């Protein structure tokens, strides 16, 4: 049960009114010296005691009337959105933990920042009745998932984001997407201000030039290093296609091989299986679950590759392609949402290779796919951003958790639907009881007179 208008409980001080009236008007037995008690009835003391008891009952009823009225004014709310009992005042919390590369750096506490974030997540105050941790490397996605999780729950809701808040990682538009009745706390994890990473290599002539970027708060250092092309530079990419497909895609493949620079051609081998490949069924049957870390990374990079996504969006499969059963994982979908690229672990001649199953042989799409496989993950460079959102900016984006959810937002009920009516009914019933007690008290007096006369 929650109270929509808890300030009304201040009205409980009104309970003192009937108590004060009772104390002030209570007929205290007045001491009176008297010559003899012989003419006073014996049972009169009992009668007084009975009346005192009735007076206390009357006082209790009157206090209960005031309390019921105050409780009704406080607008109790018994039900949850599901209609069952719930403690709407308890807190539901979704904790979004930034797992991006920048959090892998050392924090100002000397530990890895991600560990600090996870530890903080376990010690957030106040304690929440229900909470969930969502670890993502993209904060907007984390906010969306947290909002979705909270949407199905009642009570007070809060999202806590633990991140270093590199500039660009979170925008005001992302924050605006969080419903207003959900509190938002942005907890900044301080990390080292400078970091270095290799930028995508460039093939210039017969050498591969790799820039190493070091971003600091006030400067950027780029250090180029040259290396010779590998002896078997392109053995890492295998295109399994029918002869006509291979012939049609030969220029695209050649271009990709010229432009692209494989990250680690000795170990990372990729096979692209086109729809017309003669041994497609055999290759598919030999596929297994992705079991290499670099395969996960490559699939994830491909999923976020904007070039590949744009190319996939231009494809509409002429037939509905059923998704492959596990262990295949969807990498990209066409405009209608049908799986366009699926990934699995294949088995090449030598080493395990990542098998990318393409369901379309569209030239532009396949060229983009082949080119994407040959790119180093440039998105990692964003993790070098040394400038973070300022505490002032974060403060403007934060908002406190509402004390109690309004029924209109959490339950779909209006304020008029509060359960205060039950207290009003109780107050009326108590009022009737008070009248009955008073009438009983009045009716009891003649019997006392009779009793005294007999005595």
């Amino acid at each position, binding site marked *: 049960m929650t109270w929509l208008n808890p300030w009304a409980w201040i009205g409980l001080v009104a309970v003192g009114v009937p108590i004060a009236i009772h104390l002030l008007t209570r007929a205290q037995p007045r*001491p009176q010296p008297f010559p003899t*008690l*012989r003419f006073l*009835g014996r049972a*009169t003391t009992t009668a007084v005691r009975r009346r005192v008891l009735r007076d206390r009952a009357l006082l209790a009823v009157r206090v209960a009337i005031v309390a019921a009225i105050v409780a009704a004014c406080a607008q109790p709310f018994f039900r949850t959105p599901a209609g069952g009992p719930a403690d709407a005042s308890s807190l539901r919390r979704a904790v979004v933990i930034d797992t991006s590369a920048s959090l892998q750096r050392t924090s100002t506490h000397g530990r890895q920042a991600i560990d600090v974030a996870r530890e903080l997540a376990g010690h957030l105050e106040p304690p929440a009745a229900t909470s969930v941790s969502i670890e993502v490397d993209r904060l907007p996605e984390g906010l969306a998932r947290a909002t979705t999780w909270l949407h199905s729950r009642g009570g007070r809701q809060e999202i806590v984001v633990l991140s270093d808040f590199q500039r660009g990682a979170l925008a005001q538009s992302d924050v605006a997407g969080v419903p207003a009745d959900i509190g938002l706390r942005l907890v900044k994890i301080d990390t080292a201000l400078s970091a270095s990473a290799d930028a995508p290599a460039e093939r210039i002539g017969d050498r591969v030039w790799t820039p190493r970027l070091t971003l600091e708060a006030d400067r950027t250092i780029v250090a180029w290093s040259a290396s010779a092309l590998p002896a078997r530079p392109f053995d890492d990419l295998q295109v399994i296609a029918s002869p006509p497909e291979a012939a049609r895609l030969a220029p695209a493949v050649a271009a990709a091989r010229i432009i692209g620079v494989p990250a680690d051609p000795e170990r990372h081998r990729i096979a692209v299986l086109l729809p017309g490949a003669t041994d497609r069924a055999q290759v598919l049957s030999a596929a297994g679950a992705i079991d290499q870390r670099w395969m996960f990374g490559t699939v994830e990079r491909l999923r976020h590759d904007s070039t590949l996504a744009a190319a996939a969006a231009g494809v509409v499969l002429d037939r509905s392609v059923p998704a492959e059963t596990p262990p295949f994982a969807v990498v990209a979908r066409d405009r209608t949402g049908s799986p366009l690229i699926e990934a699995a672990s294949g088995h090449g001649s030598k080493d395990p290779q990542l098998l990318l199953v393409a369901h379309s042989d569209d030239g532009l799409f396949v060229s983009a796919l082949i080119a994407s496989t040959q790119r180093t993950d440039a998105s990692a460079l964003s993790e070098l951003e040394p400038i973070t959102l300022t505490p002032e900016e974060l403060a403007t984006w934060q908002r406190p958790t509402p004390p109690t959810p309004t029924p209109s937002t959490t339950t779909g009920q209006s304020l008029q639907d509060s359960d205060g009516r039950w207290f009003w009914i109780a107050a009326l019933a108590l009022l009737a009881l008070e009248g009955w007690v008073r009438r009983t008290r009045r009716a009891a*007096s003649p019997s*006392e007179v009779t009793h005294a006369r007999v005595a």
Partner: protein
Amino acid sequence: MSALQADVVAALGDLELAARLVVEGMRAGPHRSPFRGFSTEFQQHRSYRAGDDLRHLDWKLLARTDRLYTRQFRDTTNMSVMLVVDTSASMGFGGGFGGGSRARGAGREGVTKLRYATILAAALAYLAVNEGDAAGLLSASDGPLTYLPARGGRAHLRSLVARLDRLTPSGTWQPARVIARAAELLKRRGLIVVLSDFYDAEDETLRELKRARRRGHDVALLHTLARPEITFDYRGDVEFRDLESGATRVVPADAVGAGYRSAVGDFLTRWRSRAQQHGIDYALFPTDEPPARALRTYVVKRDSRPRHSTSPTSTGHA
């Protein structure tokens, strides 16, 4: 002289003065004295009136004139008046609220019954001494008897009044014992005036009163009660404390008032009827009545009622 209010009289520090004022106020009426002594000196004849004692009928005159005449005598003999005053704690009740114990009563308001009784007693003593009679005092509570033999004279009157003035309410009293003692202490037949609220030992008290009557004494009961004892006009819950026993009882006064008044009415009626039955003067003296007026009313009634005296020669004077 108009009758002074009871509280005014009671407020007088000089009890003798108070008694004199009462007597003076009482004399504004047609009667001089409440005492009709035992006289042997013939004064006059008057026509027989219904109620006259047939023993005083002049039979010889009846035989000669065929008319009924009653012989009247002048008060020539000294009469002894023994004033018996109840000084029990219940006599300290004045009708006011509160439990303060003052020298002359427990109430904050009103004249205490004892004060009122002492005023009456002093007035009677004053009256008796002025008439040439003797007045004595006997009072008692838990302690020894306060006794002053019945004598005449101004000096004795002052002594008696001083004794009365020193009486304070305390403890309980044994009316039967005191009345019996009073009857014994009167050397000859006299008047025993008992001033009390008569709450204690009704039957024993009545028994001794009857015995005193049999010894030839005239007996008068001046039943002294405060008005609240009769009307019981209390309100709300009241914790009554018995002035003598100290027992307390909380009662809803509004509820028990009617029953109380009925019981007190029965009590007063019982005393009045018993006294009348045994030839005892009885009069109720509420303490809010001006003592002079109350005493005069009493004397009028005493004069007008038939004599039950055991004396063969006494009769009232006009």
